[in-house]
């Protein structure tokens, strides 16, 4: 299923070349598969580690193919090389596109319209709510969401896309056989079923500090635009925003509370570039020229008087259970059961501990 070109690139990928050398090699060779032809490859000998070409002759093509694909088959990974027709064009035009994308899941998602949604690992409730809501809206409109499978906003994005029956791509900072962070292993399996896992590293490669930043260039590179939910100063999310600008993608930034450390980075971005100020999901769809799907008519819920009273007193923001109890003048038992009913109906949400709020 892999062409000779694919195998050649995957072999070169195992040699650990720098990106500069790699592009040079590919420039010199007419076809990457030329490395298997003795006469065609003499110009690149200096660029490769010594002995790496001789090894090709000793092994022979079939053994090389087995060498580079054995691990992939074991983990059910599909490699998409830069020479492959499946390789997304949008990713080719960034400064240093990954030469091979190791993927697991629905490979067709690479050619769909994608939106990157990134943010802090320690979001506030506000950040979570917005991430969940926007993710839902954007994937309802047919966009594939792209995130990094980390804690916080990344997890919110992946989870709410799957909940909205949308498609999501998670770009990992290490090889696909060991998911980082380990807590999201379960989630990664779900993404495999209903989306795509992507990494530029062969399996077994452990994530390094620098690889998280390098991974961010793929998130923005794959996407038409990037939406930054919450980010501290000098955070991973702001680095993604920087890549996004460098790669000429659309940048969307959510404004936040000026006293909240999780919004320092995002507010700074808006301060520098007022254009990226984003407060609705339709702003994103408009700028990306994507038609929102017809919104389903919301059926009006019939609530009883007591429920309406609760909803009324939550209109000014979240409240503690005791406070609601006092305001609607009821006992704990009645209130607990009504709040749960409202929660099930999707009107009210328990934020943390005993605080309740209206669903955003």
């Amino acid at each position, binding site marked *: 299923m892999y062409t000779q070109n694919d195998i050649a690139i995957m072999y070169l990928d195992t040699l650990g070349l720098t990106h500069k050398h790699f592009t040079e090699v590919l420039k010199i060779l007419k076809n990457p598969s030329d490395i298997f032809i003795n006469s065609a490859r003499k110009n690149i000998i200096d660029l490769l580690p010594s002995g790496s070409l001789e090894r090709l002759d000793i092994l022979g093509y079939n053994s090389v193919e087995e060498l580079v694909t054995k691990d992939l088959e074991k983990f059910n990974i599909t490699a998409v090389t830069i020479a492959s027709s499946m390789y997304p064009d949008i990713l080719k035009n960034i400064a240093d596109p990954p030469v091979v994308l190791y993927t697991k899941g629905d490979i067709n998602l690479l050619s769909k319209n994608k939106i990157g949604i990134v943010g802090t690992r320690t979001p506030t409730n506000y950040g979570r709510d917005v991430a969940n809501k926007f993710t839902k809206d954007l994937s309802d409109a047919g966009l594939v969401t792209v995130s990094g499978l980390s804690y916080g906003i990344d997890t919110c994005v992946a989870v709410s896309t799957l909940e909205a029956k949308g498609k999501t791509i998670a770009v990992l900072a290490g090889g696909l056989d060991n998911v980082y962070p380990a807590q999201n292993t379960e989630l990664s399996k779900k993404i495999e079923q209903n989306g795509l896992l992507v990494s530029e590293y062969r399996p077994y490669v452990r994530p390094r500090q620098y690889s998280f930043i390098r991974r961010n260039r793929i998130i923005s590179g794959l996407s038409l635009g990037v939406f930054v939910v919450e980010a501290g100063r000098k955070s991973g999310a702001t680095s993604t925003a920087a890549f996004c600008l460098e790669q000429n993608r659309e940048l969307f930034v959510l404004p936040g509370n000026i006293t909240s450390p999780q919004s320092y980075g995002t507010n700074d971005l808006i301060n520098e570039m007022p254009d990226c100020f984003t407060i609705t999901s339709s702003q994103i769809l408009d700028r990306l020229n994507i038609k929102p799907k017809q919104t389903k008519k919301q059926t009006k819920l019939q609530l009883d008087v007591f429920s309406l009273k609760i909803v009324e007193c939550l209109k000014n923001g979240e409240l503690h259970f005791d406070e609601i109890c006092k305001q609607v003048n009821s006992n704990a038992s009645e209130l607990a059961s009504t709040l749960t009913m409202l929660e099930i109906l999707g009107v009210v949400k328990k934020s943390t501990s005993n*605080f309740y709020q209206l669903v955003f």
Partner: protein
Amino acid sequence: MLSKIYSFGLNGLNGYKIDVEVDINMGLPAYDVVGLPDTAVKESKERVRSAIKNSLLKFPTNRITVNLAPANTKKEGPSFDLAIAISILSASEQVKATSKNYVYVGELGLDGSIKAVRGILPLLISAREKGYTKFIVPNANQKEASYITGISVYAMDTLAEVVSFVNGELNKEPVKNNVWKVEHSSFTEDFSRVKGQQAVKRAMEIAVSGGHNILMAGPPGAGKTMLARCVPSILPDLTFDEALEITKIHSIAGVLDPDKGVITSRPFRSPHHTATNVALTGGGKDAKPGEISLAHNGVLFLDEMPEYSRSCLETLRQPLEDGIITVSRASGSYEYPANFILVASMNPCPCGNYGSRELSCSCTPAQISKYLKKLSGPLLDRIDIKVDVDRVSFVSLRGEANEESSFNVKQRVDAARKIQAERFKGTNIYCNAKMNSKQIKEYCKLDPLGEQILQQAFDKFSMSARGYTRILKVARTIADLAGEKDILASHVAEAISYRNIDKIQL
């Protein structure tokens, strides 16, 4: 000369009869105790000798052999001293043959005084079952013994007193039976003194009503410990049978108050988190009952639950399920009841501020996850109610709002317990939390609306199948509290609200 006197020993909660045989022969003065005695029993020799001498009686200067039959059971503790002394005096004909009519239990002092021993209550109860009716016990154990009807117990202070009594020289009335009555002790903590926390108080009321285990999570200073200490004030009254069960265990453990003699209020045990497995489950040299047995028919409070060692917490799993703990040691295997309500508290993360409004949490996701993982899934499955506790705002602390008193809550709890007692008549359980799957099916039928709400909640909150039975059981208790025969939709909805902590999203 040969004599035989009866005494009783304890094996766990069960007493067994011991024949104290003494034979006095001609020969060089010697004193031997046979019949698997432990050190305390062997040492009785010195105590008995001095006690007899100091009671102005004669210690025979012949060859004395003491046999404790049956010879294959290990005899422990000093409680046979009195029986050995009487047996020696009987063999040397210093007391009359009428001495054989009594069962003797007690430790001797060198001056001839009789000292209190552990486990009088279970011992007398077992002896009564075996048909013995007349007992001589230490005066210090009098109170404890006074609650057992149908037997004559004579409480004595000194060996000399015992001798003149069995010889008929002294007239003494048996200990008067005490009528057991519930003690309405004043509790130091009362719900009326806890401001706010409506949700938690309600959860506690449900937990106590149905015997459900409850876990509170919240930041430090939220009042978790104070709330837990209020639990005794709403516990239902003890029945006499329950009180006897508790007293037996406390008597064996040697923690019974001699002035009271019997336990009158439900125990509230709060072992420290450095407690060992043995301290919790019971064990040690003489396989004494542990904290979970001492909390039998009461409350076991584990403050800062994740701080307990993992193995300690896991040992709770079986007793939480069966209400019994079997302690096996070299000396034998003992079964102690351990039917308690587990009240536990924890912080949401190591620093305690995760999810807090005012303070920021300084823990990494990995630390939080490690902290929460200390409570294993199977253990959490046995905790029906999980509830969040928040710091109370200054305003409501100062507020003059009248909080409901524990007395009022207790009335509702009592009523709900009564309904359950009626329901489970003739079975071996007494509260909703202990229902098995068959009973759940029988007593927790939902109407279509309730069924529908539960179904929706399952989809909405991605709950587990195990969560299902928990919610049904709690819903049953909520219905009982409301005095409803059937479980209504609103009961189900309220039950669903006590399910958090199952999943904390990082």
